[in-house]
């Protein structure tokens, strides 16, 4: 029923509309997406772009590290299962290169152990593939908010 859709505020899509407006009003979030599945990276980049997120694609761990060396990112999304390197190793390197950048891990089913290990090494959160975009957005926003907060405290502390 298309008629009733507008009258009700609070449906998921409308909430997203509101979020979207909020997202559009500020500078785009710079996100590093590391996953060896090109099809996945492509479609994710497109979808994230609609939410004012600018995605940089990396198809392997080493490529991700190279990109991180060249430029800063607000947040990184890292698939734990990559062809060339162990996801946890990449996470460790990321955290060493930029301790303040939140890293959200993507894992397959049945690899909760790896997720827990990742959290111990400083990952911000994890998501199990396949996932709803909303879930990922929520975690990205959380991560950004957390980062801003810590940046502020750091600035106060450094002053």
């Amino acid at each position: 029923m298309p008629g009733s859709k507008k009258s009700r505020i609070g449906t998921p899509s409308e909430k997203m509309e509101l979020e979207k407006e909020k997202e559009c009003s500020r500078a785009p979030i710079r996100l590093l997406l590391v996953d060896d599945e090109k099809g996945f990276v492509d479609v994710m980049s497109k979808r994230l772009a609609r939410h004012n997120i600018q995605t940089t694609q990396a198809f392997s761990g080493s490529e991700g590290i190279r990109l991180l060396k060249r430029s800063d990112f607000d947040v990184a999304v890292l698939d734990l299962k990559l062809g060339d390197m162990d996801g946890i190793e990449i996470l460790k390197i990321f955290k060493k290169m930029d301790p303040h950048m939140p890293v959200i891990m993507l894992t397959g089913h049945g690899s909760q152990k790896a997720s827990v290990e990742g959290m111990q090494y400083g990952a911000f959160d994890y998501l199990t593939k396949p996932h709803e975009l909303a879930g990922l957005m929520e975690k990205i926003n959380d991560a950004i908010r957390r980062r801003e907060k810590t940046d502020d405290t750091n600035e106060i502390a450094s002053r």
Partner: protein
Amino acid sequence: MNRKPIPLSPYYRSLTRNMVLLVMVISLTPMLLVTGIILDQFSTSHHEKVYAHLGELVLKHKQNIDSFLDEKVQNIRFLADSIDFGRVGQAVMIAEDLSRLQGAYGTVFVDLGVVDENGQQAAYAGPFKLEKADYADADWFKKAIDRPCYISDVFLGLRGSPHFIIAVRKTWQDRKWIIRATIDFLSFNGLVERVRIGETGFAYILNREGQFQTKPIFDFIPTLDIYIRYFSTLERMGKEVEIQERLDGTGVKSLYVSALLKGGDWLLVYKQASSDAFSDLRNAQIIAVIIFVFGGIAIVTMAVWMSGKMVRRIATSDNEKEIMNQQVIETGKLASIGELAAGIAHEINNPVAIMFEEANWLRDLIEDGAYKDEADIQEFERALNQIRTQGLRCKEITLKLLSFARKTDSRIEDLDIGHLIEELMALSAQRAKYSNIELVTRIEHDLPTLSASYSELQQVFLNLINNAMDAMDKTGGTLEISAKQEEGQILIGVTDNGPGIPKANLGRIFDPFFTTKPVGSGTGLGLSICYGIIEKMGGGITVKSALEVGTTFEIRIPVKTGEGQDNQTVAEPDTCN
């Protein structure tokens, strides 16, 4: 579990037999030895005791009899000194002497006579009418006339009843006289007759001719030469008592104790059946034998019962172990399938995620109202094609998985080993890609078909492939599987160039539960299951490894296999709950 008693196989029967024999030998031998030694010792000491006792007894009686005879001779000699030979013709005087003697010594002296040197009885006193008897031809007279005193053998003589004579020679007025007295046979006999021990022990006296000088209680005819031997033995050895054990005339084993009497004229013999003399020993022996027999029966019964029970227990535990081995193989199968499933789940996750995101993207586009111009339509088509492509990818994976799952029963079938290996390599391709491992298969064409269980062989190679990949997980490398035919066997090599296996672990690598993986990551069953499966097929599995070079597992499977497999060890369904 209510386990029915299973009939034991020949192996367990021979085990039972060996155990019974061993227990019997071990327990009966010491028992036999101890009993034998004790009985022998006891028998020796008892023999000695009996011999000593009988020897002493016979010696005592010998002395008794000798002194009895001596005493009688002394009596007569004393009497002879008092005889007035001038009045020898008067019967009254000698009758007085006889009554004096009888008064002093009882009725031992039967009669008394005085014989001149011609053998004519000059005087006589006694119950028989022997006055004027002529002894000139009598044996005793001839001997007595030459000696100062003489004791005759027992004889019947003129009176027709057994008796013997004590004669003392006396010289009066240059003429020799002999005073003779007859000893009452019954009272002399009584001396010997009193010697009675047990049921068969008795004594008798023999002269040198082997004639009885006493009346033995048991009637028998003595064997002359044996007694003559006794005489000579006793004289030669200078022994007082001779003890021998031999069969008597009736074939009864008897003890003979002999001693010389009367200065070697007579032989005192004590005879007793050995069984009687050693009746205590016999009793002890019978008791020992009874104890031995009952002990033996108890030991045999225990041995049979215990062995039976133990072997049954061993059989049961063997059976349980067999069942457990079967379960271990099943568990291992599940573990390797679980490992495979994890890989496949991940493999399938990627296309699913793409499809999911593409579909969401399409919805995003529709939400944005972007389905009017050419570019939008093209984006739609691209997304739909992507979904289709990823769907096909999923289908491919599922098909592979299905073909694997289809063959999980352990039925024996004809199979193409090359195909099996290719299939497993394809399944492992995704993991190999992640771990940077190059997969190489070199399989000879026209390999003969194997008769084996597809799922079991799958398990063997899956385990080996997984192990090799685990070894190269961090470093990457090459995994090569080769298969060729050689001397009626198919030879399969699984080679990796991982870090290799340390020598210390190489020997234990096929042991169950041996693992070098962290706790919780490996069951330590994989290779032991491989080993079990290959052994069951009549093949063999060996490992060669060098550190920093790599590891090769080599499997040999006979081409003709799978026949006459021993299935009896597999538990019947009703034997376990």
